[in-house]
């Protein structure tokens, strides 16, 4: 079976449209980040979270009023799709106290519907700020590593464009998190550790598709004149289009399964990786390679690439 028989899209010619699209996407995200901000999970802001599961269906309002009456202040939300609720409150040193407070209040007031506290997380503020820092450090380090590696394997212009594409992907996903955060009850899209994992996964994988395109360009560009670059870039991208889409497709398939089956704890992560890979595939064709082309055109010199093989 083949999805793309032989394509002949003029990617390079139409690259400005793609640039415009990307800029709009990024701007929308930035505006939302500034105006609405992000939903931070307790990993990053500190606090306590309790997941309570009931035996029977129950209204959120009822639990909320019981907890309010007991003097436990915090926010209560539906958690996942079953009869579970997530109660989050400020950090208290003693989660045991919080647990018994919540448990006693619910036992007293909602007798007919048995509940169970299935999870308690508490993160102190100092840990939360550590986590933020190590997240930023990990991201910067991975971008540097990718820049160095691709620079070593190809050429610095290729590497820089690849890293710009990764930035593009991560910022877009971040923007999506800001825009869509809190809109869907089954998917609160809070920023937590797992989202950082998602960003690093996106960074590592986004370059995969880019490298496939680069690899083909490297193979064909050797000894060619700069005036032929547009044709070579276009042909290379068309030739690799099918594999670019199928490699991403298999990953998207498995991440989609994660999104559906792995439960609320993984859902935000799955969403981030899914959208990140989708955008990463787009950016490797419409952002990374065209940027390299523009750069080469500006310098007007023939490119020297490392490790290219005889065709």
């Amino acid at each position, binding site marked *: 079976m083949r999805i793309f028989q032989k394509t002949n899209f003029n990617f390079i010619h139409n690259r400005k449209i793609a640039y415009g699209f990307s800029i709009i996407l990024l701007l929308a995200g930035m505006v939302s980040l500034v105006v609405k901000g992000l939903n931070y999970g307790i990993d990053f802001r500190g606090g306590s979270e309790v997941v309570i599961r009931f035996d029977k269906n129950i209204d959120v309002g009822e639990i909320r009023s019981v907890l309010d009456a007991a003097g436990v202040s915090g926010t209560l939300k539906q958690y996942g799709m079953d009869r579970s609720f997530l109660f989050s409150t400020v950090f208290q040193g003693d989660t045991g106290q919080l647990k018994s407070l919540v448990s006693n209040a619910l036992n007293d007031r909602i007798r007919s519907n048995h509940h169970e506290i299935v999870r308690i997380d*508490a*993160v102190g503020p100092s840990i939360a700020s550590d986590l933020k820092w190590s997240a930023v450090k990990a991201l910067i380090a991975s971008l540097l590593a990718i820049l160095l590696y691709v620079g070593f394997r190809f050429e610095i212009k290729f590497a820089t464009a690849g890293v710009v594409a990764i930035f593009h992907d991560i910022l877009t996903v971040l923007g999506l998190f800001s825009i869509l955060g809190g809109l869907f009850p089954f998917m609160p899209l809070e920023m937590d550790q797992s989202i950082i994992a998602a960003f690093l*996964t996106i960074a590592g994988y986004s*370059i*995969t598709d880019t*490298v496939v395109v680069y690899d083909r360009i490297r193979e064909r560009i050797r000894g060619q004149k700069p005036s032929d670059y547009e044709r070579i870039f276009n042909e290379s991208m068309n030739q690799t289009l099918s594999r670019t889409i199928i490699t991403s497709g*298999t*990953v998207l*398939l498995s991440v989609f399964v994660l999104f559906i089956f792995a439960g609320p704890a993984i859902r935000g992560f799955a969403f981030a990786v899914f959208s990140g890979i989708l955008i990463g595939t787009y950016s490797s064709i419409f952002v990374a390679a065209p940027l390299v082309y523009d750069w080469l055109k500006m310098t007007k010199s023939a490119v020297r690439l490392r*490790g290219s093989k005889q065709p």
Partner: protein
Amino acid sequence: MKNKRFNLLLIAVVTLVAVWSLWPTWRDYTYSKQLNSFGSTQDSLKYVMSHREEIEDARKKSLKLGLDLRGGMHLVMEVDQVDLFEQKAWNKDAKFSTIMQSVRAKAAQSDVRVIDLLVGEFRNENIPLSRYFYDIRNSDQEIVKKLEKESEDALNRAKEIIRNRIDQYGVAEPVITTQGSRKIIIELPGVSDENRVRNLLKGTAKLEFRLLREPEVMVRTLDRINTYLAQNSLPVPAKAPLPPDSASAPAPQPGSVAAPPASKPSSANPLYDLVGIFQNGTAYTSEHSRELVLSLLRRADIQALMPLDTELLLAAKPDVGKNGEKLYPIYLVKKAPELTGGVITEAKATFGSQGVQPEVLMSMNSDGTSKWARITGANIGKRIAIVLDGAVYSAPVVQSKIPNGNSVINGIESLEEAKDLEIVLKAGALPAPVRITEERSVGPSLGADYIRAGIQSLAWAFLAVSVFMLFYYKKAGIAADIALVLNILIVLSVLAGFNASLSLPGIAGIVLTIGMAVDANVLIYERIREELAEGKSVISAVTQGYDRAFSSILDSHVTTLSAAFLLYTYGIGPIQGFAVTLMIGTSASLFTAIVVTREIFHLLLAKNLMSEKSFG
């Protein structure tokens, strides 16, 4: 030809090792299934007895499930290094305490080493460290070096002490590690009584024997505090007042509660609304006011009102009053301990002489014994408080000189608590207070849900991807699917073999690996299709396909691996589990997707089972 044989051998060995490493997991699974199938507990017990070694062996070598999947507690504790450095300092004055306060405030905000914060703060103030630490002739660098060593020691000692306490508490397979300069990470699978564990870990076990001041002195002190509070009309939030009772009581019998002049309006006697005094001079506070009184006693202006070198402490456990109310006695004790818990060599939880009150017996080393004999000899008729972590456990009257160093802590509520105290005393005191800064606990029922969700995701992802490969690449898809199975086997077996545990994020990593592992095959197969389209023969197309796709496969794997590696380095806990499975899976796919599928094609080509159509 030789090379080919080597590859086949390698594949066989890898497969065998993977299966061998996962065999105990399978055995463990079948054993527990068998045990569950028995009707009575006797049958299963008999089965366990007869197969004990095999079962234990299988369990030990089987793939461990992470805390989130089997339920348990994950704790991050922080050693209070500011406190530690304060202990090390001498010549402490007001300047010193302001500096330490700002260090403490900064330390709470960041992960920077406390020692660096301390040095920075002293430098700002232009004060040499030697004014407060070690010898006046030491340079700053020497002192920093010494303090660094102290903090490192403190962290390791705290870790060992915590390990001792947990070992004696009896948790299966606890994992205790240190992180950075002040954190200890503790993983306790299958812990059900979280509160007990928390108390066990938090107790600093600073045991002290302190002389009690005379009751009259304490009453005068309380009067002074009361007057001070009334004069300054400091707001003492009104809480439930003490239960009024008859005004006279001969002894501090539980229940014979002497209400202080309680009828007076609360503004006139702020302290006595919270604290009562017996006629014999014993003071107490009710359970309701306990927190309030404690916070009052911590205030510097209140502490200034106490007689020199003394402080007021509350009892650890209440006496129960006549009406069932709980009353906490208050003691005025000397600040300097007569003796500290370091001399305790042995501790044992037991029941007291009447056989109902749990207590802890202690014996001391020779140094402690001789000191104890001198102290008790000099203070016959006086009371000595046994203070643990700032709370008075008991305050017995010294009847006679104790020459053998044996002492008793009573006033303990349950045997369980006595046992915990025994553990804490035996394992020794923590060098500095430790605080719980992060806690995550998962109940077993949620763990079971996670397992179900994880297995479902694995199964569906595998099904979706492998069916797609078959559909899209036909015969070549079979090879890719075989490689995929082997890949998953390798990931699981490496986890089992290295005793790492599988968590929900780890499963997510495997699911992601399923999608990424076939990428290499996609790249190769697409290349082969191209070569075939150029009219090459199947054999040369396959060879060329593998050779030419290799460089982009390598590049993409290296970038994914480096991202996963950084995630492992900077991430913590659950995220590391994800990074580990992603790393193993990605590396394994270099082998399975390239070597394994290639060998399959070689076999098929040799038997003439491949044609141009085999690649879809």
